């Protein structure tokens, strides 16, 4: 299981329908909304890791 950085929910990496690569690293999301939110302000979430 991995964490969706936007909503902090645990999600199954294999089942995650929404993902993107940012700065060479893959990120997975529970929903289109979370992926869009990450796209709008990635630093807010990457820096929180």
């Amino acid at each position, binding site marked *: 299981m991995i964490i*969706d950085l*936007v*909503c*902090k*929910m645990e999600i199954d990496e294999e089942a995650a329908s929404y993902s993107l690569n940012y700065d060479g690293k893959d990120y997975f999301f*529970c*929903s*289109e*909304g*979370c992926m*869009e*939110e990450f796209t*709008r302000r990635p630093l*807010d979430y990457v820096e929180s890791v």
Partner: protein
Amino acid sequence: MCRFLGYLGSEILLADLISNPANSLIRQSYKSKERSEPLNGDGFGVGWYSPAISNKACVFTSITQAWSNRNLLNLAQHIRSPCFFAHVRSASPGMVVSESNCHPFRQGRFMWMHNGTIEGFSSIKRRLRHSLTDEIYQTIEGTTDSEHAFAVFLNLLGRHTEKLGAVDLASGLVKTIRQLEEWAYEAGIKKPSVYNFAVTDGESLVTVRYVSNPQIEPISLYFSNRGKYRYREGKFEIVESDSVQSGIIIASERLTDDRTSWTRVAPNHVVIINSGLDVVVQLLPNVRVS
């Protein structure tokens, strides 16, 4: 498009929510940070519970601006409660500015606030009102889309609301959004609606950040860490605490400058806070109709 906040926890002074913090709700009424139009001057409302007196909320609304209402500022220094709702209004175009159109709305044990818009409300208003029981239909006092959404929520909750908990309220919110989306689809409304709703019964609090089109950024919404609230060195701050003396704030904007005390609610997620102040964040099931 309004700003709001809610609080659940140990008793707190209303002023510690609406006037004392650096980015208090009253400040947001004239200088909102996260809206393109910073003014929210079409009235305001505060609601609170006094459990020793009643399980129903007391609500005070006014069509004056929150920043210049001396009665509000005075009352806020003298009202303590374990559960508050507060709202500053920016009326949607065409909506009447009146006390009955100011949030929060109250019915039975419940209070309700909305930050957003039912797009094409006039096109779905007839079928919405037609769906309501006579009893709930009669409770609508104003003309806003927000109050009508509350009526839909109450209608979907049903008659036996005495033992409902936070999860039931969340379920009711999801059903409400799904129903509104269904009517919008039937009416051919293409523009996305924005449903940042908050509902409480004084013991639980549930809020949602939602927009019909997930590619559009929904209106901002945050919740605070569970904590104690205090002044120190001239600043209002949240100190993490698991003790009985703690609470959680939900708000359109962070009230304090300390970003680490706040979590931005993810788009199309619901935040469920139960009477034990446990917080659960859940992705809304697919409520879009297409």
